[in-house]
């Protein structure tokens, strides 16, 4: 009986988990991630997703599930997840209060997923649009690490 219940619970839980931020990553709300990135002098990796997003799901299953990707992204970045249709409110460094959807609008998350590497001023360093493979995420990480390793960069 217990196994049946657990199985049913898993069936209910899986779809929403797969449609959101990938499991096993310490994703934060955008404003918390900005604050943490400033404190730790790390760049941000911002995942603009959407509830039920097919290509987020595909990227989660086929790329973010990779242990090397997980290790690199967890170590190199402060991770933020933004639901580009959500009404959850954030506080920007300017003091402005906006919803996650409005943040997605400003950063042109016109499709999902969009992945934006940012410095702590919110400026985009690199942007990836749509489905990503392990090799894409690995290459993007290499490029961003090159950018931020230059003197004067975050």
């Amino acid at each position, binding site marked *: 009986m217990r196994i049946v219940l657990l199985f049913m619970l898993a069936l209910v839980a899986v779809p929403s988990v797969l449609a959101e931020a990938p499991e096993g990553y310490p994703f934060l709300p955008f404003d918390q991630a900005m604050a943490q990135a400033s404190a730790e002098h790390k760049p941000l990796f911002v995942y603009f997703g959407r*509830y039920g997003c097919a290509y987020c*799901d595909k990227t989660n299953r086929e790329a973010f599930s990779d242990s090397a990707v997980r290790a690199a992204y967890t170590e190199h970045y402060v991770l933020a997840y933004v639901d580009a*249709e959500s*009404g959850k409110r954030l506080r920007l460094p300017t003091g402005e209060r906006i919803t996650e959807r409005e943040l997605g609008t400003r950063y042109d998350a016109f*499709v999902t997923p969009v992945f934006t590497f940012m410095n702590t001023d919110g400026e985009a360093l690199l942007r990836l649009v749509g489905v990503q493979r392990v090799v894409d995420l690995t290459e993007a990480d290499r490029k961003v690490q090159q950018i931020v390793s230059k003197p004067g960069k975050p």
Partner: protein
Amino acid sequence: MKIILVTFGGLLLWVLSLQVQAQPWQFAAPLQVTGGQSGVFHHLESSGRRNIAVSGSTVAVAWEDNRDGTPRIYLARKAQTANAFSKAIQISGSGEAFEPSLLALDQQRFVLAWEEDAKIQMRVVTSTELGPVVVLDGNEGMQASLTTQAKQVLLVYARHAERFNQIWLQALDLDGLRLLPGAQCAVDGEPLKDEQLYPTAISLGDTLLVAWEDRRPGHTIIMAAKSQAAQICRFSSPQRISEGHTPSQTTYGKGHGVARVAFARYGAKHALAVWADKRDYREGYDIYAADYQPDNKSLFGVNQKVQDSFGGVAQQWHASVAGDLTGRVAVSWDDNRDGNANVMLSWREQDEWSDDIVVPGAGGPGQQTHPSMTLDEAGNLHLAWLERATLNGTTTLRYVFGRAAKTPE
């Protein structure tokens, strides 16, 4: 060669002038409602995008800004003939407040509903007085949207239940400046399977229509239900308005995204729902609409793409809709097809959507976004929007008046 150029130029001017003449509204110079203060950010947001309303000869605009460091709700008004808005008056209290919905009553009176400290609050405003604030009892609430039916004020909002938000209706009677809460109910009485968010409602006299975002299929869809004036809390079973996706898109995930439905009544018995829809998942949101079908088993008809084909490669956001009793209906949104965000307008002409135009005064360098519009009894168009020079820069709230050119045939 010179003759060809002159002839071509003349033809071009003639075509352009025909286009201008064909527009149902002649636009005046835009006015500033408020803004331009460093570090102050205005937001023209409400569920259903109801931030502007006209009562008699008075135009009112409601918004949220942080001029004193805290997000609060403000209102500014002007006589239709005036060339400036009044100084902003503070509507909300001491808490953080967001997303004011504005409703016009008679005799220059307005009602506002907003979220403050996670509760829905409301008050009446007359030309000289502010009514007492009503704080809705019950669970946390957000995303208020107002309409009126049979002399009652009707509020729909997202109310926090155990796991999810649920759409509720609250009816209120008016007693002078006071709002007296009456009947209340969940619009969809079935147990919640997922979130219900961002509702809006419209009355067609004897029929109340409510639409909202619903996440029950594992992605967001637009749903609607209706009730009759005699039994306002007896809603029909909810029906999906936004159409589904093609099977090829369902290998992963659950379906495409939609967002932020808005409603307007037009003619005696008609209503139009509009929303942002990402069914073409490669090009971002498009503006879609559906008509209420009073005599059909399906509450709403086939989905229509509102924007013209030139908007196909651009992203559309923040759809607002307005209609009048003669049958005019128009939709505005912001759109970056010209390389920066401009406020666009399309209207229905003989069952088709017109070519899109940039609203005069609401285009050009910088960002012109978040339109909210209404039509008054004479069919004149009143539109407010936000301007900002840079992405996260200081904002200005602006307004434009469009005089109705003629009554539709």
